[in-house]
């Protein structure tokens, strides 16, 4: 009971799951279920609850994060070492060897009165190693014939998506609701301040951020970084701790501005520090971060590639030919392609051939340049930078596709005095 109590305290709002898991894993030495599948969205406490439970209980256990296991040995050897300590330095690089080691240990009565648990975190990654790993682990109890052995699979993917040909108990960790989030964050708060004050803060905070993310880790990180700002007027004595509305007015603009950087992982750092650095011209303003500095011809190529990718080849003559006939360019821009629009938007960038790119490039460029080797290399450097993608391997007439959006091309085009919109049909 003690274990449960600690777990209830440490993980609020997870009572049901803790109970189930405790019943499945916590009863030491009894015959147990062969496979438990724990699933739920990221950051809902799956791994932490399981790990903590196993720590508190007396079971022999090992936790393996399958992301790390780019070879089978990385998964199996630590497991073998933890579950059946022996002197042999034998390589454990297949499930068969692993099962044999377990069996041997079982013969030596290593697990006679103790549960033995193998936790595979992010178990969907096991499929990268080979198809047989996941089914083999799921039926490990059957293979090794150890009645107390349990394999816990943890994943954010539903168990139904896996082709698990075995009996398993599935435990679901649902997404936290707003109130639950407040409870959890209150438990996990780093600063020691009044609980109610902190809950007020969380209420305000979640009002802004809940629409952007529900990931607990992210919210926790954001909440701790912004709390110092929130509490500052109280500490300096400007506002009372009970003046929630005043505090809200103080923090709201800052919260809203940082709403854009949720998940981006950009650490805004100390703002005073930033300002000082900005004066020295080293730390960037957000606008400068977006600006793209390319050589002159590369800019033209980028714009040309974008236009080639987003316009039909048949409109090229209208858009780029110096004398394109009776139609006025303006009218083309306004009236053309009504019908195509809907389909075009869904198709995404089209691929274009190299000679078309050069044709558009030369018509955008107002000066003559020879087609030199350096000019040709511009295209491959754009490919290398991830602005274009090359399709097919053929040496003759390669095809390309532009991967950049209008938001990136437009400022670039403006620096070379082009208006992209003028050349767009849709």
């Amino acid at each position, binding site marked *: 009971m003690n274990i449960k109590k600690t777990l209830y305290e440490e993980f609020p709002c997870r009572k049901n799951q803790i109970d189930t898991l405790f019943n499945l894993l916590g009863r030491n030495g009894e015959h147990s279920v062969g496979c438990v599948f724990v699933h739920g969205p*990221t950051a809902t406490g799956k791994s932490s609850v399981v790990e903590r439970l196993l720590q508190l209980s007396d079971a022999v256990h090992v936790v393996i*994060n399958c*992301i*790390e296991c*780019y*070879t089978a*040995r*990385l998964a199996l050897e*630590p497991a073998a070492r933890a579950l059946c300590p022996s002197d042999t330095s034998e390589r454990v690089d297949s499930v068969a060897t692993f099962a044999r080691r377990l069996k041997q240990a079982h013969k030596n009565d290593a697990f006679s009165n103790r549960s033995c648990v193998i936790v595979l975190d992010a178990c969907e990654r096991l499929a990268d190693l080979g198809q047989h790993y996941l089914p083999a682990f799921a039926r490990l109890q059957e293979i090794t014939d150890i009645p107390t052995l349990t394999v816990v699979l943890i994943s954010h993917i539903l168990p139904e998506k896996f082709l698990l040909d075995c009996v398993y108990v599935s435990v679901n960790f649902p997404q936290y609701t707003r109130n639950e989030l407040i409870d959890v964050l209150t438990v996990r708060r780093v600063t020691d301040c009044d609980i109610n004050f902190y809950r007020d803060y969380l209420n305000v905070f979640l009002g802004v951020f809940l629409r952007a993310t529900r*990931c607990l*880790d*992210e919210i926790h*990180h954001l909440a701790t970084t912004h709390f110092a700002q929130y509490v500052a007027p109280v500490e300096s004595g400007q506002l009372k701790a009970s003046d929630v509305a005043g505090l809200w007015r103080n923090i709201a603009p800052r919260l809203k501005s940082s709403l854009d950087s949720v*998940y*981006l*992982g*950009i*650490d805004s*750092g100390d703002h005073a520090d930033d300002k000082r*650095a900005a004066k*020295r011209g*080293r*730390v*960037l303003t957000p606008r*400068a*971060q*977006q*600006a*793209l*500095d*390319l*050589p*002159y*011809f*590369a800019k033209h190529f980028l714009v040309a590639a974008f236009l080639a990718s987003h316009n039909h080849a048949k409109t090229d003559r209208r858009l780029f030919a110096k004398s394109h006939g009776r139609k006025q360019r303006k009218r083309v821009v306004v009236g053309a392609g009504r019908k195509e629009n809907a389909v075009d938007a869904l198709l995404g960038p089209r691929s274009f051939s190299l*000679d078309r790119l050069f044709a558009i490039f030369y018509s955008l460029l107002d000066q003559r340049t*020879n*087609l*030199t*080797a*350096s*000019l*040709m*290399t*511009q295209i491959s*450097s754009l490919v*290398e*930078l*991830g*602005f274009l993608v090359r399709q097919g391997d053929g040496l*003759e*007439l390669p095809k390309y596709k532009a991967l950049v959006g209008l938001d990136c091309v437009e400022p670039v085009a403006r620096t070379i005095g082009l208006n992209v919109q003028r050349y767009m049909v849709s």
Partner: protein
Amino acid sequence: MSSTVSVSKGCFIFKPKDAKSRKRKSTNCLNFSSEAWYQYYSRMWSTIEKKLEEINENVSQGVLDDLAEFISKCDTVKGKISSAALLLGVNMPDHTTLFSALSNRIRANMTPHVAILDSTDFTTVRSAIEKMVALLVKEKIVDLEDVENMSIDESSDEEDDAGTVFKKSDCNLPTLASWYNEKYADKDDSNCPKLIVILTDFEGTSARVLEDFILILSQYTGRLPIVMIMGVATTASAIHKSLSHTATSQLSLRLFQSQPSVYFLNNTLDQVFLKQDCPFQLGSKVMKFLTDIFLFYDFSVDGFIKGIKYCVMRHFYGSKTNLLCYLKSDMKGAFEGLNKDNLASIEQIPSFRKYLSSLPEEKQTKIKSSSPALKEVIRNLMKELRDAISVFHTFLRMLHALVSDLPDCPLGKQYREIYSEAVTMKVSNSASYKECFKILALTSKDELLPKLDKMLEILEECNLEGESVKSLKSKLKSHRKKIENVGMEQTSRTPTKSPSKAKFNVTSRAQFKEQLAKLSETKQPANPYELARMNLLEFLRDELFESTLIPLTSLPLHEVVLFDDVASVKRRLIGAPRAALHTALNNPHHYLECDCCKLSNDGEILPTMPDVCIAYKLHLESSSLINMYDWLQSFAAVVNPNGDGGKDLDDQIQARFTQAVAELQLLGFIKPTKKKADHVVRLTWGGSA
């Protein structure tokens, strides 16, 4: 022949006996290292290189400082990898120097554990992690050697540790973690050296692998103090474009930026090449060409410097006159090294001949007849030239300080722009120069004073001697004082009527307009500041810059120090594969230099030319679709002019034709088509490019 007796089959090479002697001959013509021009060149370049190194260090200092501060300050929170994104600009080859400087600095001051990974290591997660761990652990070996050197007692048990340097397959994070914990078990958490992982090329790394890499590292954030530094060539948004939320939320990113690449260019030019103490001066055309390559094509400072290196080499290569372009320390040697040959060729320099012809007749003959006299003249001229260059650069810099921040920058914002304007023609005659002074005539006192201070500072810094410079300096100072003191004196100006108060007795719109025009024409009496400003500008325009900014190209012997042969540089620095291909096919004589293919005019087709050339020249005459049969007929007619041109062709000719066509297809000039039977499509248009 016992040496060739062998059990297995083999191929034996016997060098001809005289190989050695032949080799010596061939090396003789390449043995330029002892020749005078090469020695001058190498000495010159090594001094320039030294300066470049100094500058490079200074320029990247700022970013390195920031990064070092970041690394030492950042705390390693569980679940977040502290990482820095370094925005470096698109030219990646230039970055290697920065990264090696960074890693050296980190190694020297902070932690021995640095791993530099580039995009080729990120083919799989496994290779990335193995390389990283190997590099991080490897530092230990280096450490050990230091330890061994210091204390012999400990070396025995330390060596045991060295034996456990891991196999490649053992290089994974669990081993790294246990190794690290063992190594720093006795140390405080905050004292432990951090593990720095540097990814040099973010765009090149596979996003999928990098994502897994980050996720794996994030598992160890609590145990290992890992700091990641990523070199990003484009923008910060590239990170968020290629990595998923799960990965980016594991990072705690800080953004850093190095100076934009144009800054590096300007800095290098300003500090090294466009200076009076650089003995080698760039001409405006060459400089424009090189900066164009930089701005239009690659943003590569490295490439730019290599271009200049080529120019320096070209300047000296085989030249008899340019040995005079010496370093200051070489002055004596340079003049002693002049022999008759050199003097004769110096005499042929156009600017020198012009100078001679301006001298009186008797002096000319005297100089021409005796070589000591000629040497003396050259020595004086060179000294004058050096002095003139110093004066030129100093005053041009002053002009730059004066006009660089004017609206619209008529003379250009950068020193290099104003330099390229002034080096060949008299800048004071140019329209943009006049434009500048027009704008300057409207500047306020607050704007003008700092400019004057800056100009004086430049003048102060260079230790120019000579009476004229000194007098100019004192005059400039007095002008400055006048302008500064203008506001201090009591002015006895009568307030003029403001136009709003002036009464208009008008009845019509036209009349009102007329009166307004009249009002604007009547000049307000100039106030003292305006007078002082006018005097100053007049002084600047008519005295200061007029006498000093003499274009270098008008000085005698300027060819010796000024390199402006853009044609030769262009041919070698910018490759034009299509043009070369066209020349080779159109006029094979150009490359083959055989007698049989000499063309009298461009359109001529000779039967002696290679088959592919004949086919190529014939295909130039056709339109977009080429009929194969017609082509073959004309080919046969060229190859065998005496043939009957009838239906039965020689099989040999047909085979040659087929091969030539296949070659053209391989070169990308034609391709088969399904539009029309027996036709091929022409893929190129226009001749030269």
